[in-house]
């Protein structure tokens, strides 16, 4: 039997794990069936977050839900398993100790960030948005035409976000009357 990596996965009856094994071991699937894995590994297919090629990624995660391996998805027609150095780095992007883990607030004139809880942050952010909207809202322009717009704050961003997030950003900000609505596509 010609054992490819994919039918080996099916044959061996484990979801993944083999992605961490030396190549030579994959050839002897029968032996591996009883091989004690140190931890159960989950494998999921997704899409790379860097350029716009939309390459397929196979992500292996441990029981804590953290990424332990990333490799190309051979079933995805965009890349058929090939990847670049950034795509592989999604593991480090998710695991980096430099990722932001808590909401942070910097007061006017302060020289530091302080940690805050989400409730406080969301309330304070919403208050700033409301205060600025209410203070700058224009019901009509100088010709008396109804314009219902908020020139007081700007929203930027979204080219690395999911469609659904961009849609929500567009919908929410337009409902608030925002006219300075821009992102990476303009530059």
């Amino acid at each position, binding site marked *: 039997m010609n054992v490819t990596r994919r039918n080996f996965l099916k044959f061996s009856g484990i979801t993944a794990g083999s992605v961490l094994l030396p190549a030579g071991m994959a050839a002897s699937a029968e032996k591996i069936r009883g091989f004690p894995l140190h931890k159960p590994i989950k494998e*999921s297919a*997704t899409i790379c*977050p*860097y*350029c*716009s*090629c939309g390459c397929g990624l196979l*992500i292996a*995660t441990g029981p804590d839900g953290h*990424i332990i391996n990333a490799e190309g998805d051979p*079933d995805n*027609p*965009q890349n*058929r398993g090939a990847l*670049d*150095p*950034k795509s592989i*780095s*999604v593991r*480090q*992007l998710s695991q980096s100790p430099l*990722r*932001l*883990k*808590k*909401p*942070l607030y910097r007061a*006017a004139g*302060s020289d530091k*960030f302080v940690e805050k809880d989400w409730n406080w942050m*969301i309330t304070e952010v919403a208050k700033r*948005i*409301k205060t600025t*909207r209410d203070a700058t*809202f224009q019901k009509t322009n100088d010709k008396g*035409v*109804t*314009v219902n717009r908020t020139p*007081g*704050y*700007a*929203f930027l*961003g*979204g*080219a*690395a*976000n*999911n*469609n*659904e*997030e961009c849609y929500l*950003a567009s919908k929410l900000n*337009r*409902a608030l*009357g925002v*006219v*300075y609505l*821009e992102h*990476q596509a*303009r530059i």
Partner: protein
Amino acid sequence: MTNHWVDLKNADVVMINGSNAAENHPASMTWINKAKDERNAKVIVVDPRFTRSASQADLYVPIRSGTDIPFFGGMMKYLIDKDLYHKEYVLHYTNAATLLDPGFKGPADLDGLFSGFVDPDGDGFGVYDRGTWKYQADAQGNPLRDETLQNPNCVFQVLKRHYDRYTLEKVSRITGCPQDKLEAAYKMYGSTGAPDKTGTILYAMGQTQHTVGSQNVRALSMVQLLLGNVGRPGGGVNALRGESNVQGSTDQGVLAHLVTGYVGIPTAGNNPTLAAYIEKETPKTSYWANKPKFLISMLKAWWGDHATAANDFAYAYLPKVESPAHHYWISLFQDMYAGKIQGLWLMGQNPAVSGPNSRLEREALKKLKWMVCQELVDTETCSFWRAPGEKPVDIQTEVFILPAADAMEKAGSIVTSGRLIQWRPKVAEAPGEALPDDQILNLIALKLKELYAADAGPFPDPILHLNWNYGKTLDVEKVAREMNGYAVDDVKDPKGEILVKKGETLKGFAVLQDNGTTACGTWIYAGYFAPADDGTGTIMPATKRRGQKDPGGLGMYPFWAFAWPANRRIIYNRASADPSGKPWAEDKKLIWWDEAQKKWVGYDVPDFVATKAPTDPGGKDPFIMRVDGKGGLFAALNEGPFPEHYEPVETPVEKNPFSSRMHNPVVKVWKTDEGKNIGDNWGKRKDFPIVATTYRVVEHWQAGGMSRWLEWLTECQPEMFIEMSKELAREKGIQNGDQVKIRSARGEIQAVALVTARYKPFQVEGKTVHQIGMPWHFGWGGLAKGAIANDLTPHVGDGNTTIPEYKAFLVDVKKA
């Protein structure tokens, strides 16, 4: 992209202009190499620098940055002079035969301008009155045509006269490219004018980030029309989009001039009411004739039961702008710098590094009262108030950092450059308390509703009535279904037959209504979340499909995910068949007219009324989004209907050889605080003789938030550098690895010199012109640190989109 990544394998010639695809869109090379291996395809790379893409090319054509229009203009002249254009395609599928108003005049007659230029203050910059830029029409308003293409007023003849001035000799002198290389490129790419051949043009920011960026893209699109390469496998006009989902963010209208699906934001002047919007913004022909259905279905999605026929579907809830351009990026930062903007809310963007004249843009951030950042890491923007040299005590901006989950840590869809919408499940846990951006938006929206319910403020209705029911913990699939669209009530055809039952998910945009019975957040996405077969009989939301079937073997994969619009893999694909409906070539057979079945059939979803025969009226008009259904060899942008060469605003040449008009006459050159340390300062060639451009490398990503904080990528590419030719290094006494200072009129930065043979000096108008390049990924934060390239770039943008002129500005360099 009109086409898509896998389709590159069907090309006979691949021309890459202003893109380093091998480095910045690496998967493209899989398919380009397949075309080389299996079709003996040729690759041409046109670029100021011998890039990694150029190293894979059969022909490398160096041109000075900012001279793409001469390059393409010269090509159009060559194609016409040598009779290489695709005659049948040009005659039937483009507006070549259409007669123009005899009052229309172009740069050949008017020294670099088109008829109608208005320059109120005589400074050389102004706007056009487009009164003469039009077709001749009969009494019914139908455009007049001359099928012989001989009438001096037909588009073909006017175009021919326009580019007659773009001789090989002149193009060579201004681009700095030797004539033999130009001619070799023209000949090689011209081979795709044969009816059975196709060529694809790939472009990226190297085309767009110029004051003539839109006209660069127009020029390459015209080449594609002349060669009959649009709407066909292995052809197309293919923008390699710069971010993983910049296509999708644009589709959702996160831009000042749009709402969703490329429907325009209303203006106060033209569109004060829904009736005025519909009257002014709806063409009578083309698929855009359905625009009212798209807009009203979006309003129903946004305001639900509060959007009724009686209140014009809540049209008053949408903001109306005076001019969208007042709110574009550069204007936005100018207004922020002037203290007119109190707050800034960012979702995954780092303008402290990525904005043009970034010193000025960082200064603008200091004028804010508050800033909110949804971010993965502490970027330069998050911490602009403690940048090197800043005194935090003097900066009064409150900053709120909301830790965000990354793409692996949440669910949702993204779109490839090729319009393919692929679903990403959540595959990993986010660190600490980080939340997905959609959850953050949900929490803020719900809190705002609560605050407005307690204390109304001015016109609270759009917020209180906003249709926002995704759960306390947002269910992203509910959002997806709303974007896709659903029937609010039974949807009936004119005879009263039910097309879609109340509550059902819409399968496509053809059923959208303007009477409030359909809700659809983003009309071009209709169908992406509807139940669909993956080719094996398994039904799932279309975007989640992983079907491997590829009928026809062209790499269309119609059962893999979902491509907008309507799962169509190549748009304008009527043009893949000849006027009688037969494929132009057997090996590029995509769709064709089946006389027995009386319909279009094939391997892709026809971009056409499926039962419209080639002999029917309009049966030979593939460009269904255009009013006349014809490809626009003549089509108006703000600078005119044909691309004309103008120099970048900072130029190394003394004279434009095509006219006395140096610069794009419709751009806005900002002069805020000119002469000050931080301001809109402009360099002259005597002080800044070297052309500079910014670019990207494969190891880093954009402004760095997703790469400079990672050890692996830092090890690959640890710091900022400035790439220059051996000749320039010798002239300046610089060795590879030396620290150098690079200065523009707007700032000075220091970095390592990377001396390579990849840049060569150009001979431009008899003089030597050097060009240098530098990556713009770096900043003071993260692990891979370095100077910010955009401290040098200018506040001037394209005449239509205002994308900044990052790709051609003037600098000087010296050893540090």
